[in-house]
């Protein structure tokens, strides 16, 4: 009995499988985008296309201020995370022997594996008792920022550490040998080489903060709702197509950013390959 599949069958099967996987991943998003242009107030029933919910979004000052709050928190918490993450990564990589190194290294990555709920709850308890004893801080933008920075620092540490590890230690030594004091080594050699890692750490922590619900819910106070919190609370009251509109705007912005950055990286990679090839052919002449 000859049971082997013909190449054609295999080809169609793999194509079909691929389509199915992509559909599974992206259909919900596509549906969401399509329904953001739906005129009907019912999220699941199509009537006809319109910009009605985008107009509604522009008048929805609550939602817009929530988006602004989210952007602000994401931006500043990403900056804080990258800053502290870089310091931690440096301490762990460049100074090999100090007391408590192992402790610091495991503590630094602890928030990665700790459930957000636990982190949020413990932070909340701490903040409540702090407020009780010191009268400060009130829960709001600052406390959310704090929580996001805490989580982001752990992620940034991982990203920067992996870059530092693959960087040649000899470069630091060469810089020192040529007359750089330790801080100059950092400013003139390490930092410029670290920039790609810092950018990706920034993007990662920015996104983490931007879509966080759990920590924000624990740490926010009255009048401080981030965009995901607001979407979440509105979804419980029954979905409003404005949410689709705001989601679509977010998706479009993110997609453009992702496409642009991947085009840029592949451009750099191609350029580099070309230059390396050029160097080899030159050296053979």
């Amino acid at each position: 009995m000859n049971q082997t599949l013909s190449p054609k069958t295999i080809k169609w099967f793999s194509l079909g499988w691929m389509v199915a996987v992509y559909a599974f991943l992206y259909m919900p998003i596509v549906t969401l985008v399509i329904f953001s242009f739906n005129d009907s107030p019912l999220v699941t029933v199509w009537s006809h296309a319109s910009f009605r919910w985008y107009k509604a979004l522009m008048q929805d000052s609550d939602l817009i201020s929530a988006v602004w709050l989210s952007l602000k928190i994401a931006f500043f918490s990403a900056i804080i995370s990258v800053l502290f993450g870089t310091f931690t990564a440096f301490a762990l990589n460049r100074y090999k022997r100090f007391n408590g190194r192992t402790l610091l290294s495991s503590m630094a990555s602890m928030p990665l594996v700790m459930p957000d709920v636990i982190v949020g709850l413990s932070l909340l308890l701490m903040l409540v008792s702090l407020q009780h004893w010191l009268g400060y801080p009130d829960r709001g933008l600052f406390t959310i920022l704090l929580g996001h920075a805490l989580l982001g620092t752990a992620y940034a540490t991982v990203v920067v550490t992996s870059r530092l590890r693959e960087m040649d230690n000899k470069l630091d030594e060469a810089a020192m040998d040529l007359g750089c004091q330790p801080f100059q080594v950092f400013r003139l050699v390490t930092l410029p080489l670290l920039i790609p890692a810092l950018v990706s750490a920034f993007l990662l922590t920015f996104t983490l903060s931007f879509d966080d619900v759990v920590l924000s819910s624990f740490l926010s106070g009255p009048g401080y709702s981030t965009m995901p919190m607001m979407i979440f609370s509105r979804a419980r009251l029954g979905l409003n197509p404005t949410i689709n509109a705001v989601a679509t705007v977010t998706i479009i912005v993110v997609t453009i950013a992702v496409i642009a950055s991947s085009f840029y990286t592949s451009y750099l990679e191609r350029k580099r390959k070309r230059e390396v090839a050029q160097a080899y052919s030159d050296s053979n002449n």
Partner: protein
Amino acid sequence: MAVVSKANIVREDLLRVEGVTKIFDGAVKAVDNVSLTVASGEIFALLGGSGCGKSTLLRMLAGFETPTKGRIFLAGEDITDLPPYKRPINMMFQSYALFPHLNVWDNIAFGLRRDGLPNDQIAEQVEKMLGLVQLAKYAKRKPHQLSGGQQQRVALARSLAKRPKLLLLDEPLAALDKKLRETTQLELANIIEEVGVTCVLVTHDQEEAMTMASRIAVMSEGHFLQVGAPDEVYEMPNSRQVADFIGNVNIFDGVIDEDKADHVTVRSADCLHYVGHGISGHSGMNVGVALRPEKILLTKDQPASAYNWCEGEVTEIVYFGAHTTYHLKLASGKVIKAQALNNTRDLSYGLTWGDTAYAYWNERAMVVLTQ
């Protein structure tokens, strides 16, 4: 075949290392009580296998490691406690350690800028260095746009740009392929000689050490086995370890038979050695007789002399093109190597596997090793 002229001008000592010891983690003795002096203008090679402490010693000279004990002086000044950025010493790294984000010009200018020199002086010095290593037209390229040999020259230019009193070379040619290495070796030595900088070189490659250095220190387990000119170390090794590490050697274990002022005879299992010079030993002493393969001649006829030959069976013939190495199994089971220069196009001796051959040598070919 040392390239560097060994003109015996009396030069002052530039570098003096006094009893330097480095212990890592309280236990591992990487460098063990080493002392040395390097004269101004000299190229000094530290030669040894991996883990012999040569790199640690070099890193202590550069300032990346602090000696556990001992002092380092440069031009009379104690530099032991100076950080690397305050030492008038520059290093060329094994992997070159060129800054990937800077182009050739900026790499070379890097050290000069740290000194706060005015721009026109920096430019002048960088141009000079680019000329020296013949890379003027590559000034605007980044390191990854250069071939290995070019990168090596940029690294050299960068380490020479600040006019260091002492240049350190860490395995300068290890990253290049064999063919490029030979030409680069000469080029490097010529540039160093042209600049006239004093140089300490670390290498595991004895050929590299012999061609480039005016003096070699053979290192093992943290201390010097022997220090001397290349020919001295090769022709007059002071111990089995040195004889064995530098080039190939056959060592016959034997006992001193006759110890005279102008000659010695040593009896070993396979032959009687007549050594044409006196040694500091006594009759009945156990010694090794070292004999380099290229100093052994082969013949099919038994030599008439009473000394300095032995009989064996050809077990291996290794053809290298320029020369051929014959392995001879002696009566005691010992295998010796004899190297023959292929100065005609047919193999010199007409020997083949299984033939009986006689190895013989001159009375001035051997070194008696008392250690």
